[in-house]
């Protein structure tokens, strides 16, 4: 299987007053077509910066890609200009973030924001875009699609907003969906429904998913392969069963062992040898 996305020796550099650092420090991995890959790590691991580097949305000028290659299909993404990137983002790569309110524009209706990429990337007319927007809302399980399309983001609950964002991300039927902590801000019952929805869409459309998360439970139930990151480096990569049943790296083992759900009825949670967690 040829890789859909290949990240080779990626480095992200941050220049701050206190000096230069590499929060992503030479990582390589790939995602096959239609595959779900979990990129898991604690805060400061560099997992989100990796996702941002792929879609070239690193936060400021002080944070930039400082080495390595990102291949999308057989295209080297470094050769694509800003305009070309706009043609890829939202079109061939869809994105979902933790906080939908930062990604949705409060000044426009949900319907408008759904129609916009369809008109831009797919050249649909107003009526066709409108029909497609309603169809997308229904696809993500929103029943009163007309009503939701005419409302503003702040009128909707957190779960509904996340559904809208998924509808937007899926609107142009991307090859790759990058989901950065898509359910972290949601209640657990909503989280289960949203994860279900992402996996359903993945199966029906054959979309590959890069799921960035700190939550090992979420990874266990939705990913086929897992990349474990820490301090900007990859510690191990493997199939989801290997990672959970036979982790190779001491950090992965310690992380799994310290989860409360694996220690019910025990007096204490195992805490990490200092040399592992530091």
């Amino acid at each position, binding site marked *: 299987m040829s890789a859909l996305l290949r990240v080779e020796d990626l480095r992200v550099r941050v220049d701050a007053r206190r000096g230069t650092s590499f929060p992503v420090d030479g990582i390589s991995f790939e995602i096959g077509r239609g595959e779900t890959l979990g990129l898991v790590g604690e805060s400061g691991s560099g997992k989100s910066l990796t996702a941002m580097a792929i879609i070239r949305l690193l936060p400021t000028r002080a944070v930039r890609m400082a080495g390595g290659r990102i291949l999308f299909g057989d295209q080297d993404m470094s050769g694509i200009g800003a305009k070309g990137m706009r043609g890829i983002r939202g079109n061939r790569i869809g994105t979902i973030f933790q906080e939908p309110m930062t990604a949705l524009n409060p000044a426009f209706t949900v319907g408008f924001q759904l129609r916009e990429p369809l008109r831009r990337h797919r050249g649909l007319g107003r009526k066709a875009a409108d029909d497609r927007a309603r169809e997308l809302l229904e696809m993500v399980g929103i029943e009163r699609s007309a009503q939701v399309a005419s409302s503003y983001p702040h009128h909707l609950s957190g779960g509904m907003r996340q559904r809208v964002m998924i509808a937007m991300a899926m609107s142009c039927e991307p090859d790759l969906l990058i989901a950065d902590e898509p359910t972290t801000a949601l209640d657990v019952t909503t989280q289960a429904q949203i994860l279900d929805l992402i996996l359903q869409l993945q199966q029906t459309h054959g979309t590959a998913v890069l799921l960035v998360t700190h939550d090992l439970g979420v990874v266990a139930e939705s990913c086929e392969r897992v990349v474990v990151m820490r301090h900007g480096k990859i510690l191990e990569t493997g199939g989801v069963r290997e990672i959970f049943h036979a982790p190779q790296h001491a950090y992965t083992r310690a992380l799994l062992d310290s989860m409360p*759900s694996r220690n019910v009825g025990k007096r204490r949670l195992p805490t990490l040898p200092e040399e592992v967690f530091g």
Partner: protein
Amino acid sequence: MSALLSVRGLVKEYPQRGGRRGEIFRAIDGVDFDLREGSTLAIVGESGSGKSTTGRCVLRLTEPTSGSVTYDGLDLLGLDADRMRAQRAHMQIVFQDTYASLDPRWTVGRLLAEPLRLRERLTPGQQRTRVGEMLELVGLEAEHADRYPHEFSGGQRQRIGIARALMLKPRLVVCDEPVSALDVSVQAQVLNLMKDLQDELGLSYLFISHDIAVVEFMADDVIVMNKGRVVESGVCAQVLADPKDPYTRALLAAVPVPDPDALEDRAMRRAVIEAGLAAPVGGDVESAR
């Protein structure tokens, strides 16, 4: 073991947002529970369940509309402001967000000494000793008193939050999502610390959390809240092993398990979650079976 804290029929009403005059919204609606001395009672629920409001009402940080709160035989809601203030020394709160709860302009030493300064007549030297002892008790160092909150990691800041709550030697500590902002590895350290402190000091915890796994590890007893009501309560291990209320079942079914082989039937789970969310709140448990 007797109840340190007894709550009966607790109600908090707010004016309905965007509603007509006189319309009210019940954030919590008739909450009952008992917290046994030296034990942990968890309040578990999702956003909007009223779990945090319940915690705040118990301490009268938010004034409840009606009901009763009895602490060590004393009717808290009947106390005037001065007597309530005197009681607060025995009951403290730990918050989730240490950025909001620890003043960034104060040193850790000043933050921790503040309750002593207000309540106890101690010399600066005595205060400093007490602060140093407390920092060591929560796994930090006495020298840390001279630093500012931002110089610490998230886990260390929560240790400081716990230290401040314990300065006046309370018997009851309300913990409102104390580890929700922390990484898993750090969360384990803070939970262990809280258990150790409970054993050592005989603390009673009212432990508010959305995280079932954390609750299962920490709590002796549990109440499950949904839309302001208690839908199920009992011994934690029993409730979680054999949930009776459809909402509790949905909540448990939805928790992701860190085992790729655990989730066998997604369709079944979907059905349990949908049924639980659609069920009438606090419906008759027997008829729901």
